[in-house]
């Protein structure tokens, strides 16, 4: 049922390379997003990026520049305005501020903004060869930043107090992390779309958290899940012609539901065994 074109056509090769890079990157970033409980920021930044992409389409420049500028700008705004207790309000305000600008850009674009809608829903054919190079470059930069931040960020995510007591600049660290997320979304958005970027970021990690408790194993598992999700989605999107974001979210949610079911039965089993021993 599959024709060979799925592996040989040049735009599909770009899609495979771009998708794989994006899957690897989002698995690692998603790990921190999940343990820090910052799903909302992970949802807001891609949409901020989308507004920038729409602006780039209006000005007729490379969408990647607009995406990166707005996503990183949004991250800095959340970091700058955010205080500890009302972070979600700040995130919501940043989201609507950038999206309001996005509405303006879309409204001002004279032609039907196909490019902008591709950014919203994702398009596998949308990755050009230049973009593959840019994606690989930004991906590697993000991974290096993450490796550099890894230990202090893990500490600050698990216990803010201990990190502060040890003299880790927690706030600066948080802003740096948000900037890395912003930069990463700039390359994830063209592949899976602004609306669903978020589901690739949290889906695999939310799933692996239910299956294992050690951080190393969880990361490896979510890397695997993320790759499988993206690959399946690329194949399905190629066959059906539907937006790839739909398949990413459905695969992610299905795996999450399975993991929760497995977790539920495991806990039930343990309880049963404990009950028998007590008797």
């Amino acid at each position, binding site marked *: 049922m599959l024709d060979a074109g799925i592996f040989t056509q040049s735009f599909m090769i770009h899609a495979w390379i771009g998708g794989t890079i994006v899957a690897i990157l989002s698995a690692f970033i998603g790990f921190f997003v*999940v343990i820090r*409980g910052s*799903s*909302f920021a992970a*949802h807001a930044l891609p*949409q901020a990026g989308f507004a920038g992409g729409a602006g780039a389409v209006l000005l007729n420049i490379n969408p990647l520049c607009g995406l990166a500028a707005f996503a990183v700008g949004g991250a800095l705004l959340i970091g700058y*305005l955010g205080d500890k207790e*009302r972070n*979600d*309000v700040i*995130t*919501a*305000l940043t*989201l*609507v*501020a950038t*999206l*309001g*600008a996005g*509405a*303006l850009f*879309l*409204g*001002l674009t*004279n032609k*039907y903004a196909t490019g902008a*809608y591709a950014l*919203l*829903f*994702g398009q596998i054919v949308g990755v050009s060869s230049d973009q593959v190079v840019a994606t690989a470059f930004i991906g590697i930069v993000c991974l290096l930043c993450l490796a550099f931040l890894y230990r202090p960020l893990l500490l600050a995510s698990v216990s803010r107090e201990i990190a502060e007591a040890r003299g880790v600049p927690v706030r600066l660290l948080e802003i740096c992390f948000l900037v890395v997320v912003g930069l990463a979304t700039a390359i994830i958005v063209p592949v899976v*779309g602004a*609306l*669903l970027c*978020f*589901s690739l970021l*949290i*889906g695999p990690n*939310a799933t692996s958290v239910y299956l294992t408790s050690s951080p190393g194993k969880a990361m490896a598992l979510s890397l695997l899940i993320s790759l499988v999700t993206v690959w399946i989605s690329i194949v399905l999107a190629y066959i059906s012609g*539907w*937006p790839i*974001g*739909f*398949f*990413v*979210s*459905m695969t*992610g*949610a299905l795996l*999450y539901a399975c993991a929760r079911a497995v977790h539920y039965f495991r806990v039930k089993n343990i309880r049963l065994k404990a009950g028998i021993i007590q008797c």
Partner: protein
Amino acid sequence: MIRFLNLLFAPGFFQNTQVMNALLLGGVVAAISGVVGVFVVIRGQSFVGHAIADFGGAGAAIAVLMGINTLWGFLGFGVLSAAVVELMGDRAREHDLATGIVLSVALGVESLFLYLDTHFTGQAGAPMMILFGSIFLIKPSTVSIVVALTAATTVIIITIYRPLLLCSIDPDLARTRGVPVRIVSLLFIVLLSFVVAEGSFIIGALLSTALLIGPAAAAIRITHKLGLAMLYSAVLGTLAVWIGIVLAYDSFLWPPVRRGWPVSFFVCALILLFYLLTRLREKLPGSGIMMVRRVT
């Protein structure tokens, strides 16, 4: 004076029934959003509020495909998803993830149906309409439905005002007093989804959060009395929508494309401006709030 007014309100502003409908609807919805928004902010449910709007967007996309009023799509999916999120996660952290996963399913469905809309109904503007709103295109028959819905929401809010306030501020105290916290939360989230659906209907699924959170966040920074904060928040929201409509009407002659700037943009920009002004006011030395903060 008349020349100035003419400059402010472009000719034909007050004769246009669509503009009048927009003013009425915008005012009503902004006011109720402002009141409910204060509860949302003190309960820390901004993410849920935003998520409900996106679920509603999926419903609206399906409604366009089926050729029915998008308001029903927003409402149906909004209420359904709100109940699911409320029942799925109990603890705060799980709540975040549960909301996230359900949200990503909704967004997936939304993007699929928006894609199908543009391909099968020939309405290329459907995504723009659902995601970014179309306050001037609302049918007069829908106006009365929205007003009735808002009235019902207001009545329920007034009825459960005291227990809801107690649950929002201190759930443990409410539980010891015998308030059914679970039921009140469930009821509140259903009301929230009504309000969000109306907001999405007028300024778009992606931007309804602006009406919900923006004025409330600003109002809470102005006063610490919650009742007063709700009043301020309703006033700020209404002002933002009305000024936004006036500006959007004026902007039909603005460059670069002479067909008007989107209302949603003006509303978002004004709300952000209000919020930043309240923050600025707090930073000024000698401002009342600063002193109150120091005393407490």
